[in-house]
């Protein structure tokens, strides 16, 4: 379990996170949602150790991040997989080299064993015959899949995704969402997804944390989001007419 207690983070005197607490469980797709500038990316980067919070505790299965030494930090990070918003694939490396990279750095395997693992994860994300291609030769959806493949190649305990379906068409976005959820169940990982895509939230948000102005304003699941009376989340989720109507239909049906 990932436990976050009372997290504070500021930049140049501006308080971005104001005492956020949350827990993320194994085998669940946990989502952090909120408007742009609500602090969700900063929150995710604090979890990843890319930002150091001023106050608060982040613990990974009982290991307090702040208490770990540099070597232990690096070891913990090897248990993490990350899918970045833009994919963050290495331009100069082919798809195969991109995915093989963490294995080359940390696994004591022969080239054939590594290649075998690369092909397994590529197959898992439904990509084949792309080994020799460079990231620039792939579509946005394919780049995201390669990014997911790279994130899971080391069998991570924790998977973090920053807006994994931004810039994708609705069909590809749903495919990516479902893929992340399937992988989370299959590998029994703790997955934390940062998103403001309401389709994703409704589709795979088993646990949702809503951040507003750096504060946790609501917590629940995609089922509970329909019934909630919390004005902040209602204003955010049901800002479009389509979602307002969907909510109305759901509430009418459940009466």
């Amino acid at each position, binding site marked *: 379990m990932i436990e976050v207690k009372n997290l504070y983070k500021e930049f140049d005197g501006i308080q971005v996170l104001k005492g956020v607490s949350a827990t993320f469980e194994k085998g669940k797709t946990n989502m952090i949602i909120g408007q742009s500038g609500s602090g969700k990316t900063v929150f995710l980067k604090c979890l990843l150790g890319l930002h150091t919070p001023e106050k608060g505790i982040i613990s990974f299965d009982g290991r307090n991040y702040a208490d770990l030494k540099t070597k232990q930090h690096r070891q913990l990070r*090897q248990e993490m997989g*990350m899918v*970045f918003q*833009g994919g963050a694939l*290495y*331009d100069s490396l082919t798809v195969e080299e991109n995915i093989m990279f963490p294995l080359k750095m940390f696994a004591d395997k022969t080239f054939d064993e590594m290649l075998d693992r690369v092909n397994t994860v590529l197959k898992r994300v439904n990509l084949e015959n792309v080994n020799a291609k460079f990231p620039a030769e792939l579509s946005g959806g394919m780049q995201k899949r390669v990014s997911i493949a790279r994130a899971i190649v080391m069998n991570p305990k924790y998977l973090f995704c920053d807006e994994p379906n931004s810039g994708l068409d609705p069909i590809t976005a749903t495919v990516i969402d479902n893929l992340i959820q399937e992988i989370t169940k299959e590998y029994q990982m703790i997955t934390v997804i940062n998103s403001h895509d309401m389709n994703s939230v409704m589709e795979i948000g088993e646990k949702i944390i809503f951040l507003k102005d750096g504060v946790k304003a609501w917590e629940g699941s995609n089922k509970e989001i329909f019934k909630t009376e919390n004005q902040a989340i209602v204003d955010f989720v049901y800002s479009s007419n389509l979602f307002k109507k969907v909510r109305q239909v759901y509430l009418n049906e459940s009466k």
Partner: protein
Amino acid sequence: MNYIEHIGKYFIMLKQVFKKPQKWSVFKEMLFREIEDLGLKSLGIIVFISFFVGGVVAIQTALNVDNPFIPKYTIGFATKRSMILEFAPTFMSIILAGKVGSYISSSIGTMRVTEQIDALEVMGINSLNYLVLPKIIAALFFYPLLILLAMFLGIFGGYYAGILTGLFYSEDYIYGIQLDFNPYFIRYALIKTLIFAFVIATIPAYHGYYVKGGSLEVGRASTQAVVWTSVVIILLNYFLTQMLLG
């Protein structure tokens, strides 16, 4: 941010750079890639510029030495000295600061703004060590070779200019380049080159690594990197000349 803060941050960066590579096989792979990118790909421009600079130095010396009491072999002697002492180590380093410095700064800067450096850090990789150390080693290894080549081609360029223009005889020029040869000058040039190579690899890396923003900022960082690398090379050149030849 003031200059002192930048200098402090630069040395803190170097502390991270000079750590033991996490995997030697990956480091070796990166090193060969950098030797190709920073060294071999600079070969063309160094060959071209040094040859013509040598030619110009010889022609200008020939045109200015019109006093019959000054022997013609002075042209060869002056060209050799100019190429070995200044043009090859300093002038070529400034050229490399422009070519290689902008490449290092923009490639690392682009990796920063596209979160590729974050991806390395999340994997538990010391990104500075992984990205910058191979560049430093490649530059330290290859640039002295480039500068030696530049010295040779510059002197040869002078010789060829004499043949083409007829301003001086080849025999005089060859006598001039053989006259009063001091091996210490080569050592002096190579010491300078090693220090400049370190500067060329690290200052642009610093500007690229700490860039914030988007493509515009990467472009700005690249320009700043070239300017600061050139300024530091010129300043160091002054102090090193005073220390080593003074």
